[in-house]
């Protein structure tokens, strides 16, 4: 028996020595020419993203990032106008409820299925069924007019339908794959006509995309037509910002998503930065106007005056996300109204408004009225909705409003609570905070529509319920004259600002940093700023 132990210990030490030697050996040969996926580094773009969605396509913005690589859309958005992609031309009917698209000829999905009107009809069915918020696009179905003309039907006129369709969620898939492949297969290895195909998805690690060598359907605003320059796109997932940044600085990756904000200045100096402000509405405060202290406009305005929003955003985000005072619409959307000078930082004004509203300062510095303290509950989604920096910004708000007598309670929600929609009922939340990505101004209808008593609208976090204003929103959306329509939407933004129902804080940005000298990277202009890699040339990257 003694023998076993004798043999074990020296063996252990030998093993330790071998491990150390192995480590040293490895150090000597780490500058290999292959990527982790085993592809040739000189032909592979390595991009490091943050979150990994469960499926390659779907209604979550994280899925649009991926679908954009594999699917083409009907149209592409080029700053302020639609440009041809799979559709070469389009025409809106007189009642503005039908849009007819003529399709590009000779396009094939990577499984050999041809792109035609029937394929588009099948995809519209798929969107209507699977994109849970599709109803806000008013798209209800499609009819094939001929082999390569197809009409999309809307329940309401929607001048922004082209913007919406150019967004990565509305990518076109092979109808054969949709009908014949399993759900799991379509999730991980869907078939499109885009510049890349999924070669291997290693869950928790990366997706390896391979070039579609027959690619002939690039959008009109791409930097070149034909197949991608690089042979592979290695798309890694790293939830930690320091890890992503280190992958870029060590040269393991050429492009990364969201760097840590304390590296933003450095990134601007030594790398190429891309900073896309998403459409919809930004990171905004939604005041509960149905119950609690914020039913009084003076209290809402006092809250905003009490916060030095511009300074906090500057200090926390260091330029990686700009201040935005508009709580209703993003600067990326049409008809955006700049209200950045409304409610300047003015604690004296805030105190005066609270006095007028009858909230008296108590011994502990917290105001109260009729025996109730001025306590504001703010449940928020730490993590996927509010980043670490966002949490720091909210804590700064908490300190500043305390000076005028608000007790702001920041209540972080677990992911389960967050996705279960908890703490959003009017009696559980006095103040909401978050964003909504959407390419069209009818975001107002999404976030301010009260819904019905039986089926209230869950997106309405202010619990705003005013039929007269709702009628104005509907009228703005239906207005046929573009000038009057812009006017109506701007008046509404002014209304929601003046009433302090939702007030902006900072922009929700998609930040990308690329190696210096890397040519051809760009962000899609639909509403999400999706990264496009098919024009990237690796040769110049340092």
């Amino acid at each position: 028996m003694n023998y076993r132990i004798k043999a074990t210990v020296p063996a252990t030490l030998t093993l330790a020595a071998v491990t150390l030697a192995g480590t040293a050996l490895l150090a000597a040969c780490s500058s290999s020419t292959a990527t982790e996926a085993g592809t040739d580094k000189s032909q592979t773009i390595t991009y490091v993203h943050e979150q990994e969605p469960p499926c390659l396509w779907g209604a979550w913005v994280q899925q649009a990032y991926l679908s954009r690589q594999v699917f083409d859309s009907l149209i592409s958005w080029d700053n302020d106008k639609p440009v041809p992609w799979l559709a070469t031309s389009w025409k809106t009917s007189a009642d503005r409820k039908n849009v007819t698209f003529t399709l590009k000829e000779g396009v094939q999905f990577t499984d050999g299925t041809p792109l035609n009107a029937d394929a588009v009809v099948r995809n519209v069915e798929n969107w209507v069924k699977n994109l849970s918020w599709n109803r806000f696009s008013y798209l209800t179905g499609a009819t094939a007019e001929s082999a390569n003309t197809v009409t999309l039907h809307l329940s309401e006129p929607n001048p922004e339908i082209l913007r919406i369709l150019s967004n990565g969620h509305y990518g076109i898939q092979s109808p054969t794959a949709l009908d014949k492949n399993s759900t799991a297969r379509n999730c991980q290895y869907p078939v499109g006509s885009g510049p890349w195909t999924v070669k291997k998805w290693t869950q928790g690690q990366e997706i390896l995309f391979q070039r579609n060598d027959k690619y002939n359907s690039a959008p009109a605003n791409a930097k070149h037509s034909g197949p991608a320059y690089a042979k592979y796109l290695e798309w890694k997932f790293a939830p930690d910002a320091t890890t992503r940044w280190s992958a870029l600085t060590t040269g393991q990756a050429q492009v990364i998503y969201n760097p840590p904000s304390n590296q933003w200045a450095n990134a601007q100096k030594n790398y190429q930065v891309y900073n896309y402000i998403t459409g919809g509405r930004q990171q905004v405060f939604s005041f509960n106007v149905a119950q609690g202290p914020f039913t009084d406009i003076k209290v809402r305005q006092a809250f905003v005056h009490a916060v030095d929003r511009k300074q906090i955003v500057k200090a926390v985000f260091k330029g990686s996300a700009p201040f935005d005072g508009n709580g209703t619409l993003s600067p990326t959307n049409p008809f955006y109204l700049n209200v950045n000078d409304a409610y300047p930082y003015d604690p004296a004004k805030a105190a005066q408004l609270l006095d007028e509203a009858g909230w008296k300062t108590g011994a502990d510095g917290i105001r109260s009225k009729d025996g109730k303290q001025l306590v504001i509950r703010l449940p928020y989604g730490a993590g996927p909705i509010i980043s670490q920096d966002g949490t720091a910004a909210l804590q700064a708000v908490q300190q500043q409003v305390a000076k005028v007598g608000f007790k702001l309670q920041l209540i972080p929600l677990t992911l389960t609570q967050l996705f279960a929609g908890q703490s959003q009922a009017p009696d559980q939340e006095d103040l909401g905070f978050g964003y909504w990505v959407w390419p069209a101004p009818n975001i107002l209808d999404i976030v301010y529509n009260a819904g019905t008593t039986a089926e209230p609208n869950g997106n309405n976090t202010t619990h705003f319920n005013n039929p007269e204003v709702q009628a104005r929103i509907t009228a703005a959306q239906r207005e046929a004259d573009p000038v009057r329509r812009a006017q109506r939407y701007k008046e509404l933004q002014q209304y929601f600002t003046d009433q302090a129902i939702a007030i902006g804080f900072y922009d929700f940005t998609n930040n990308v940093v690329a190696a210096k000298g890397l040519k051809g990277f760009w962000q899609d202009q639909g509403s999400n700023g999706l990264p496009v890699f098919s024009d990237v040339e690796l040769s110049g990257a340092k």
Partner: protein
Amino acid sequence: MTAAGIAAALPDATETPPARPQVTVLLRTIAVKVASAFFVLWGAVTVTFIVLSALPGDRATIVLNVQSGQTTVRTATEIAAVNSQYGWDKPVIVQYFSYVWSVLRGDLGTSWELRRPVSAIIAEQFGPTITLTLSALVLAWLISVPWTLLTAGRAGRTKTFGSTVETVTAGLPQYWLGIILLIVFAVTLGWFPVIGGTDFSGTVLPAFTLAIPLAGFIGQATRTEFDRAIRQPFVLSARTRGMSETGVRVRHVLRHALIPGITLSGWALGSLLSGAVLVESVFARPGLGAILVKAVSDKDFELVMGIVILISAVYVVVNLLIDVIYAIVDPRLGDTQ
């Protein structure tokens, strides 16, 4: 796997001839071990099911929000549709029995979130996780045994130094340690890739991140026992026989000191699995840790339970192995079993 564990334990049982015929004892031992393994698995499944069901948060709302990237309150119509699609409108007890029945038939179900069979997800993620946890465990032993031999049971300063280092390393937060190792060895020195994948070079830093604090724990446990054992009469007698200091430490004292460390290793496996979540996040490494956390927060029952069954099975096997190792290290324990 259970049977293999028993078979390995057998030679010790045969050393002392039992009163009853060997085969009966063997069969009875196997039966008891297998039955208790099943009991543990059943218990794990049941408790997990109850906890998941009792956790607040409506499953249908979670499905709707996760699939659309929203966090809103859903209408009754939307919720009813999802509940009927997944069969969640049935009573919880019915759902429980139908789940247990399908597990007994070998079907772990499908993850609603990843839309793939749970068995396929586990098969894919088990490799990286087990590689990481086992290499961390082995590394922890490789670090702590020589350290204990060098510093435990020595005079004042050396002993204090050894034990202080262990206390400090045992308390190192894994997330922080991971970032430090990443910055030093991957970014500054460039010895390893920042995002390494699952091959050897990608496993070194994550394994060290988990192993260093664990080595501290194991070291503390073995040290206490080592200090006690080195004062025992048999040590004195070995010394009087003229045995060298190293010989005494390695052959006699260490063997006693290993027992608490081995016991701790069984526990450590669970701790490594939970620590793996943070390490997987820092090093962007695949594995069951991150998947389990996501599945729990999304109340993805099938996936959570599949992983729980697997981890429980690993525990059962590891504890059997530990019984065997005890018997090897300390024959007295083997005799009494």
